[in-house]
């Protein structure tokens, strides 16, 4: 974990302020827009940015991100352009960026070149949606050598025992996916209960990815864990919203941030 990322995590712990991770699909609708949006996220209060590298078959994402990926794919963005995007963002912002993708894009690129690109782009880690903890050891180790993180996922189907095992191997934070592209399968109470159990056995921060789409829900989720990952709602705002997108996005992020910080 580099200092940029560890600072965010430490800071959150000290201030007891929820971590706000916001997701975007790279090159949706085009790469320059993505740079603008990343800046908006950072400026308006996102602590972390998940930059989703488009994949042809985003199996575990919902319809919104599936459509966004399909649009972005048509831009045919190469690795060099992603690197440039990262570099241009870093010229003005220090918000950590996690490049998110599916495992085949990593394998196809090759693990070493993949990590080299992350470094060149000045990114801070990777999220690989279809790489469960048990299959991820080698990639995690390689990333770690480059000071990059591979946050693992946990889910409603993750047993407490399994959680312990995953949390032990976690190098940064965990992402709780309360849904798998489908509807949440837990009540708020069940979620709260589960978080309590998890928190009792590990101090690693847990970010909840649970279809958060407004400030109220952001507050509700972040009350029980250490932060929120907002993806679909963000991407949906961008989807065909015309020239006002940047302003709308800024307002939305501000609103979410305020919601999380309200308590």
């Amino acid at each position, binding site marked *: 974990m580099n200092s940029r990322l560890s600072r965010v995590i430490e800071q959150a712990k000290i201030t007891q302020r929820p971590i706000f991770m916001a997701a975007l699909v790279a090159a949706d609708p085009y790469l320059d827009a993505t740079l603008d949006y990343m800046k908006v996220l950072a400026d308006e209060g996102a602590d972390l940015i998940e930059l989703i590298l488009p994949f*042809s078959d985003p199996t575990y994402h919902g319809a919104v991100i599936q459509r966004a990926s399909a649009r972005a794919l048509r831009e045919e963005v190469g690795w060099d352009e992603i690197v440039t995007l990262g570099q241009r963002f870093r010229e003005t912002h220090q918000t950590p960026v996690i490049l998110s993708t599916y495992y*085949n*894009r990593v394998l196809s690129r090759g693990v070493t070149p993949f990590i080299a690109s992350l470094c060149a782009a000045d990114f801070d880690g990777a999220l690989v949606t279809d790489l469960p903890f048990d299959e991820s050891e080698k990639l995690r180790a390689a990333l770690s050598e480059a000071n990059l993180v591979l946050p693992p*996922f946990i889910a409603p189907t993750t047993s407490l025992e399994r959680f312990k095992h995953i949390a032990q191997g976690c190098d940064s934070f965990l992402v709780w996916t309360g849904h798998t592209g489908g509807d949440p*399968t837990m009540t708020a109470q069940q979620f709260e209960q589960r978080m309590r159990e998890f928190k009792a056995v590990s101090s690693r921060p847990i970010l909840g990815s649970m279809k958060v789409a407004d400030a109220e829900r952001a507050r509700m989720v972040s009350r029980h864990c250490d932060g929120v990952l907002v993806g679909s709602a963000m991407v949906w705002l961008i989807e065909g919203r015309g020239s006002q997108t940047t302003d709308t996005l800024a307002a939305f992020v501000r609103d979410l941030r305020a919601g999380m910080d309200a308590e």
Partner: protein
Amino acid sequence: GRYGRFGGRFVAEALWGPLQEVADAYELAVADPQFLKQFDELLDRRLGRPTPLTPLPRLSEKLGRARLWLKREDLCQGGNFTANLAAAYALMAVRMGRKALVGESATGEFGAALGAMGNALGLKTLIFMGREDQDSEPMGVRRMKELGVKIETVDAPIRGRKIAQSEALRFWGTHPDDYFYCPSSLAAPDPYPRMSAFFLSTIGVEARVQIERADCTPEYLVAPVGSGGFAAGFFAEFAPNETIQLVGVQGAGEGLSGRHAASVVNGRPGVFQGTYSFLLQDEDGQILAPASAAAGLSVANVGPQHAQWAEQGRVHYVAVEDREAYKAVQMLLKEEGLLVSLESGHALAYALKLLPTLDEGQDIVVGISGAGERDLARLEAFRAAEKAAESGGRA
């Protein structure tokens, strides 16, 4: 869950636990004589096993001195090999206390097979199927509807039929306690590749006995390979026997230079649908839409055991174009009166090429994965197109 460097369980975390549960239940099931007896009884009494090994004397004579045989899953309940799998899955579902089956289907055949076994064992069935696939397979859809199968239409104009499997899997991730997941593809996360291969191995076991009884000494066993479930079931029993050459035939579509479905022949290893195996992908790792006139071969990747067999050289993988497959199906109809699926036509086409190279006393056995009734309209269209082409240029 590994076949050399292939296989694995590359899924979202939400699916890890449910898959492990299935894996554990599978281990117990195959160690339970009562379960195996139930399965065997279904195969015997309901599915009509064993399916025959049919010699083709006329076609053999026409093409040389060796003998051609077919292992006939077209005579299995429902007209194809998937009934075997559906029976096993339905039994597993009951064993695990699930109330329903969920899977996907490109042709409606697997969907109907699941619906049928589901009904027989008191389970509901939910099938994800692409809208285009539904349009091109009206019979399969009708069959599912009459069985009371709930069909979830997947709209995916861009990404083709591979999305139905993803959607089924995604659905299962949120309902693992109510549903048993039934992938039609062998290219699926562990434990499915080993589980389906085991339940389909009956085909090969039967064939070996029949081959011995018929005094048949095959040089080649040839089978169609889409994701390779049928071929895995057919080959597994023979894989240790180095004297028989195993051939997996994939769909070359309109040719390997264009769009095709030859994942082993022309793809490279990658992770998709939860498994690491040979895969149709571009240089960026984006999955390519497979293309073959045979819907069952139109799969982007292959079961991991095939990837291993390919690397070991144990099975030889080749690709056959749509038109060769059509012609093979037609030839079999004309010479032997048997109507097999276009998928099987691919394997047959390759066998017909091998036949003249063999000697008297040598044999080829082709695995027929299913019947060809659903291809009749396509055969008719192909014949019309060929005729148009012959009479001077395609109209």
